[in-house]
Structures are given as structure tokens and as C-alpha cells.
């Protein structure tokens, strides 16, 4: 090709390239001072200026003011040195709107290397930029939201199988597990076991169907303690609408739950209390009224609430209520004071009242709770007891006087019996004796026998009177307690009784007998009577065996006398210790039937007891306990 042809062809190519460039890019050319020398149609279109408005103008006409000075300086320094600059620039159109352009500025140089002009080729990237901005903004928003969520909530994410894939700090804090301990674990690691199977099934059914579940769950922390969380589980779904993961967002409601439990417990307490528990305002208006109050004061809750508590006071109690309200307003409580209130039916009742101020969360006193207990019964009982005590004292004085009088009478009676009853007996016995002595020879045998029987009866009556008087005497005698050497006492008694069984074959067995506390003279009488009986009723035995023993039964000292004599039928045992009670005929065994009565009286006066165990013809054992500790 010829050079001109070649040139022509080259120019054509350049024109084509230029046309292609114009078609595709936004093109402007400025002189080194930045004055616009050329703009293409796309430049005009995007900047909304007409070409005439642009040509000859400083390029800064489309400056947006968006870029920092350093950015602009860098641009100019680069191109002024003849180097290509490339970057993204935000420009302002004629109507004030902004647009973004990807810009390449190519300096065209003189032969001396100085820029002759600058050719700026741009591509509109406004849309991309806006998209980027909006993405950046929404990303930031999501992050901010997430931060806010993390700050506020307990968050955990699991896969569809329930394996933990994410936990936030708050989750770790409340569950007391580290993140490492949780990630990859089954979410059931924090199950408390508190909820029913149906509850858990409902949860899983809901979320596995892609629906949000909301509820309150009790979980277990690593140390075994429990916590409550208000939980929202949001399933994130895949393209097929199947859950891809579950995001659980929770709030710690442990305190609220505990408060709820505490509150319901308190509510039950208040409701089931027999005491009246009444809330009232500082103005004295009833605010709450429990069943106890209904029972004690007779007003139903609906009647009482809203009315002044003054209705419970007796007419003279107005000042009391004012004083109480003033005390409450000062924050003082009033403990257990006893006062009088009036029931709905007008009946006055005694109550024990405690009042405490109620404070709001900010510490301000907003009212009082009054707890009142009906003590009418107690007061009445106290009064009765007081009265009883008074009458009792009076009665004791009265009875003592009666007893003393009875004692004096008994004494006078005994005295009189002692003197007067025996004289006629002596006459009966004596005069019969005189008849026998002086006129016996003149009487037939039968007459003498009858006279003898008169005399015997007189003798016997004398014995009866003597024993009865002795019984009365021992009952009256004051008890002179001291330590009594029982072993010595028994030896003395056996010595005294020896003449009565002289010559009889008797085997005595005597245990070690510890000392006891009692009246020596009276206890001696006990031994005399028991041993006399043992000797008497074993009369027919050869040899007679008499055992005198002691045993300690649970700290109770028991002395006993056992014989192998005639014994008695246990069905009459209850009669044994009665005065004049005899289980044997007088012909067989002499006696008045007073001996054992005396024994029982003495033992009873010591505070002890006496009893017997026997079998007919197999002997008898008499036990007695002189109450009081054994002394060694």
C-alpha cells in the first residue's frame, strides 16, 4: 500500500476507533489548564450539559466535591507528569445529581514531554457504585443488628439435626460452657429434663415444618444449675423450603421465673393463712383482703376493698388508726400489739396486729400490710385460766381446811373409840369371866361354853379395835424420811418375831438388801406385817421356806417376801389389801385383816406400791416399792 493510501487507511481506522470509542465511552479532552476542548455526546448526556455549555469551560464544572483534596492532587500530579491516571470519580451533573465514572486520563505530550492535552475516557459506573453503596449500607446494618442482637440476646444456631454451629458470648455465659465445648455438640447438652415429651415434640414439629416456635424453656447449665429462657426459634430454609439451620434467640427470664414461683408461693400463703392479711394505702383504704380477713372480720373481699380500714376499729379507735398510719408513713413497723377490732356483725374481737410498710421499687412507702390474728379465744382462755387459778387457790385453802377438820375429827373419833369403845367390851369379857369364875360350878357345861364364847368375842373385838386404831394412827403420823438400812431393819424384825416361831423348822434366805429412803418406823411395820404373815401362813410346811429379797427393775427398787405357805387364789388378790379383808377362816389362821391394809397404807404414803403374786397351796410373794431412789 502506498504511503498516502496507508495514511488514509490509518486515518480511517483512527476515525473508526474514535467512533467506536465515542459509542462506548464518555470522552472529554481538556487543555493542560483543564479547559474543556472536546466532549462527546455521551459526556453531554451523562453530565446533562449541552456541548456549548461545556466547551471552553473549566473541567471542574462537573466536580462533585466528593473526593478529598489529596485524591485530586494525586490525579493532577500524575497527569501533569505525563502519566496515565486511572480511578473512579464521582461527578455532578447539571441538575445536581451525581454519577460515578470509571476514568482513565491519558496525557498527550509535546515533543518536550510536557502535556499538550488530557484525554479523559470514562465509563458510567453509577449503577455499580450505587449497588456497592447499598450493599455496604445493608451489610453494615445487618452487622449492627447482629451486634445489637448479641448484645441483647442469647443466640445459638444449629443445623437441622440440632448440632450446634454457632453460639454467641451470652449463650456461653449463661450455659457456663466455653464456645469450644459447645460447637459441634448436640443442642440437648443443655436440656434440663424439666419439660414433657409432648412439649419437646411440639417444638420440633413446629420448626421442622419451617415455622417459628416461641416459648419458655428451662435449661441446665454446666454446673447443674437451671436457668429459664424466653426462646424464639426461627428456621432458615433452603431453596426447597426445608430447614437449613435453626436460629434460636433467647432472653434470660430466670429471675422472672423465680419471682413467679416466689409470687405464687406467697399468694398461696396469703390465701391459705388463717390470719387476716390486709393491704392498705397510706390513706388507710383497704387494697387487698385475704380469705383469713374474710373469716376474722366477716367482710367479703369485694365488700372490704376500697373502703377505709377504719371500719374495723371500735368507735374509740380513730386515734389509734391515725397514729398507726403516721408510723407507717415514717417507715416504721408495728409489731404484735394486742388491740380490739369490730367485725361486720358488730361483735368486738381481740386481735394481735402487726403492721409493716410496703415500699415501691424506688423505696417510696406506698402503704402497709396488716396481719391480724384473732386472739379472742386465747384471751378468753387466759381469763378462764386466771379465774381457775384464783378459784383453785381458794379451793386449796378450803380443802386444806376441810382436810384439817376431817383429820381433827378422825383424831377425836379415834380418841373416843380408844376410850369409850373398849370399856363395854371389857365389861362383856370381864363380867362373863366373873360369872364363870364365881358361878361356873353351878352352870351346865353348855352354859359355860357359851359364856366362854362371849368372852372370846369380846377379846376379838378388842383386837379389832386395837388394829383399827393402829391403822388410823399410822395414816395420820407424819412421814419422817431418811436413809433406812433395810438389811438391818429386817434383822431386827426377825429378831423380834423369833419367839413366835420358836421350834419351827424354817429355812430363811435373805438377799442383800440395799438401803432406801423412807420412814424407818413405818417401814419396820411393813416388814413386821409381811414377815408375820409369811410365818403364819407357812405354819403347815416342813420346812417352811421364807425368802427375803430385792431386785432392781428399771431403776425401781423392789423388795419382796416369799413363802411356801398356803398362798391364795389370785382371783381374790384385789381384796387382799382392804381393811378387815380376810382370805382364810379365823379357825385356820387367826388375824383381824388389818395387817396388809396397814402395809398398803404405809407404802402408799411413801409414794410406792405393793402387790402380791400367789397360788393356792403353793405360797405367796409380796412385793413393795418404797418410792424414792435407792441409796447405796
Amino acid at each position: 500500500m502506498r504511503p498516502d493510501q496507508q495514511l488514509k487507511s490509518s486515518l480511517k481506522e483512527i476515525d473508526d476507533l474514535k467512533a467506536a470509542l465515542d459509542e462506548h465511552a464518555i470522552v472529554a479532552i481538556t487543555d493542560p489548564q483543564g479547559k474543556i476542548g472536546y466532549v462527546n455526546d455521551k459526556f453531554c448526556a451523562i453530565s446533562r450539559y449541552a456541548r456549548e455549555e461545556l466547551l471552553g469551560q473549566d473541567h471542574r464544572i462537573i466536580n462533585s466535591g466528593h473526593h478529598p483534596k489529596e485524591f485530586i492532587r494525586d490525579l493532577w500530579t500524575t497527569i501533569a507528569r505525563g502519566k496515565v491516571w486511572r480511578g473512579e470519580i464521582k461527578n455532578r451533573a447539571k441538575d445536581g445529581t451525581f454519577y460515578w465514572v470509571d476514568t482513565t486520563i491519558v496525557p498527550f505530550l509535546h515533543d518536550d514531554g510536557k502535556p499538550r492535552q488530557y484525554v479523559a475516557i470514562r465509563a458510567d459506573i453509577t449503577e455499580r457504585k450505587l449497588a456497592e453503596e447499598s450493599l455496604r449500607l445493608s451489610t453494615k446494618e445487618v452487622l449492627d443488628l447482629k451486634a445489637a442482637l448479641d448484645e441483647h440476646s442469647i443466640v445459638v444456631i444449629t443445623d437441622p439435626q440440632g448440632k450446634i454451629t454457632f453460639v454467641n458470648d451470652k449463650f456461653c455465659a449463661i450455659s457456663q460452657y466455653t464456645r469450644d465445648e459447645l460447637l459441634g455438640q448436640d443442642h440437648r447438652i443443655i436440656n434440663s429434663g424439666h419439660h414433657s415429651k409432648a412439649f419437646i415434640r411440639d417444638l420440633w414439629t413446629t420448626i421442622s415444618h419451617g415455622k417459628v416456635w416461641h416459648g419458655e424453656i428451662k435449661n441446665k447449665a454446666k454446673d447443674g444449675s437451671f436457668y429459664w429462657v424466653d426462646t424464639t426459634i426461627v428456621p432458615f430454609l433452603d431453596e426447597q423450603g426445608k430447614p437449613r439451620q435453626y436460629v434460636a434467640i433467647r432472653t434470660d427470664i430466670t429471675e422472672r421465673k423465680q419471682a413467679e414461683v416466689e409470687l405464687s408461693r406467697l399468694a398461696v400463703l396469703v390465701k391459705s393463712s388463717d390470719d387476716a392479711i390486709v393491704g392498705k394505702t397510706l390513706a388507710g383504704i383497704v387494697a387487698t383482703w385475704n380469705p383469713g380477713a374474710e373469716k376474722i372480720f366477716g367482710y367479703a373481699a369485694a365488700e372490704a376493698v376500697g373502703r377505709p380500714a377504719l371500719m374495723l376499729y371500735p368507735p374509740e379507735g380513730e386515734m389509734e388508726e391515725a397514729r398507726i398510719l403516721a408510723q407507717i408513713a415514717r417507715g416504721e413497723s408495728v409489731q404484735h400489739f394486742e388491740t380490739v377490732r369490730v367485725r361486720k356483725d358488730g361483735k368486738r374481737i381481740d386481735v394481735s396486729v402487726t403492721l409493716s410498710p410496703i415500699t415501691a421499687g424506688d423505696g417510696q412507702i406506698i402503704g402497709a400490710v396488716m396481719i391480724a390474728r384473732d386472739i379472742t379465744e386465747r384471751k378468753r382462755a387466759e381469763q378462764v385460766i386466771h379465774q381457775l387459778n384464783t378459784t383453785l387457790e381458794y379451793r386449796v385453802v378450803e380443802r386444806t381446811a376441810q382436810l384439817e377438820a376431817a383429820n381433827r375429827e378422825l383424831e377425836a373419833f379415834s380418841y373416843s373409840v380408844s376410850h369409850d369403845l373398849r370399856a363395854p367390851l371389857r365389861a362383856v369379857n370381864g363380867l362373863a369371866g366373873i360369872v364363870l369364875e364365881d358361878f361356873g360350878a353351878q352352870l351346865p357345861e353348855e352354859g359355860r361354853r357359851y359364856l366362854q364364847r362371849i368372852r372370846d368375842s369380846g377379846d376379838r373385838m378388842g383386837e379389832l379395835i386395837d388394829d383399827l386404831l393402829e391403822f388410823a394412827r399410822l395414816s395420820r403420823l407424819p412421814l419422817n424420811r431418811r436413809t433406812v438400812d433395810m438389811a438391818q431393819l429386817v434383822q431386827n424384825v426377825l429378831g423380834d418375831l423369833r419367839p413366835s416361831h420358836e421350834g419351827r423348822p424354817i429355812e430363811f434366805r435373805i438377799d442383800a438388801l440395799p438401803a432406801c429412803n423412807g420412814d424407818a418406823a413405818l417401814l419396820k411395820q411393813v416388814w413386821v406385817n409381811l414377815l408375820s404373815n409369811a410365818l403364819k401362813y407357812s405354819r403347815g410346811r416342813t420346812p417352811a421356806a421364807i425368802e427375803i429379797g430385792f431386785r432392781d427393775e428399771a431403776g425401781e427398787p423392789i423388795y419382796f417376801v416369799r413363802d411356801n405357805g398356803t398362798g391364795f387364789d389370785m382371783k381374790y388378790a384385789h381384796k387382799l389389801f382392804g381393811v378387815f379383808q380376810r382370805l382364810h377362816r379365823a379357825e385356820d389362821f387367826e388375824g383381824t385383816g388389818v395387817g396388809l391394809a396397814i402395809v398398803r397404807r404405809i407404802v402408799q404414803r411413801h409414794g410406792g406400791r405393793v402387790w402380791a403374786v400367789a397360788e393356792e397351796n403353793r405360797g405367796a410373794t409380796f412385793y413393795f416399792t418404797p418410792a424414792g431412789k435407792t441409796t447405796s
Partner: protein
Amino acid sequence: MSDTRLVDILLVEDNLDDLDMTLRALRKANLTNHVQIARDGVEALEYLFCEGPHTARIVANCPKLVLLDLKLPKVDGLEVLKRIKGDPRTKSLPVVVLTSSKEQRDVVESYQLGVNSYIVKPVNFEAFAKAVGDLGLYWLLLNQPLGFRLDPA
């Protein structure tokens, strides 16, 4: 009344039966020669202190023994005993209480008043007769009295 004769025994007894039996017992023991009987405390005191029907008597001629029942009409035996032992003229006169009573207070008070012996009358006839006979023998025959009469001051 033979006021002036000397008596061995002053028997103070209100009960007729006891009186008969006592006298019989004394008789059996041959001690009834000189017995003066008083049926109550007043009679006993009048005799001893020579008052009333006995003013002719002199106190110094007192009996050798007084058998004294305690339960007596008008003035009781203890009062009589008290007067005898409280009077210097009769203080050394042996007094034996012969009574039905075994009551401790009677025994104690009698001894405190200075009784010489306290005998409880047995109900049994033989025992009674023996007791009376024995005490009579003892006080009248075996016992050695003071030997002279104390005269009133």
C-alpha cells in the same frame, strides 16, 4: 363417909363395870381393906384436898396410891393428875393412870405431868385382873414410899 380413916388406895373411876372389876381384882389380891372411891374428878380432888364433904380430913393423911382413870366427868383425869403433882402437899403421892386409852398424847401428857405409872386396862378379864393385882402389890407392898408426910407450908 368415914372421912377420917386412913386409906391405902384412892380409886378414881366413873365406869361402874370397871369399878366392880377393879375392886374385885384388888379383893382377890387382898388389897381392898382401905379403898376410897371417887366417881369423878371433882370428888377425887375434894377428897385429896379435904374440901366439900371431906373438910374434916387432913391433907397430910393422903392415900398410899391413887388409881386414876383419865376420861372422867366434870374434871378429867389429867387435870386431877396436874393438881396432885402441882401441889407440894401431894406431889410425892404415887399416881397410876389406869385407863382404856392407848393414845400416844395421853401417855405423853401423863408422863409429862409426873405420873408414876401408865397402865392400859386390858379387855381380857384375866389380864385385867392380873394387871390390877400386880400394880396394887407393887405400889402398896413392894414400893418404898418417902416415909414421911409433907406438911403444908
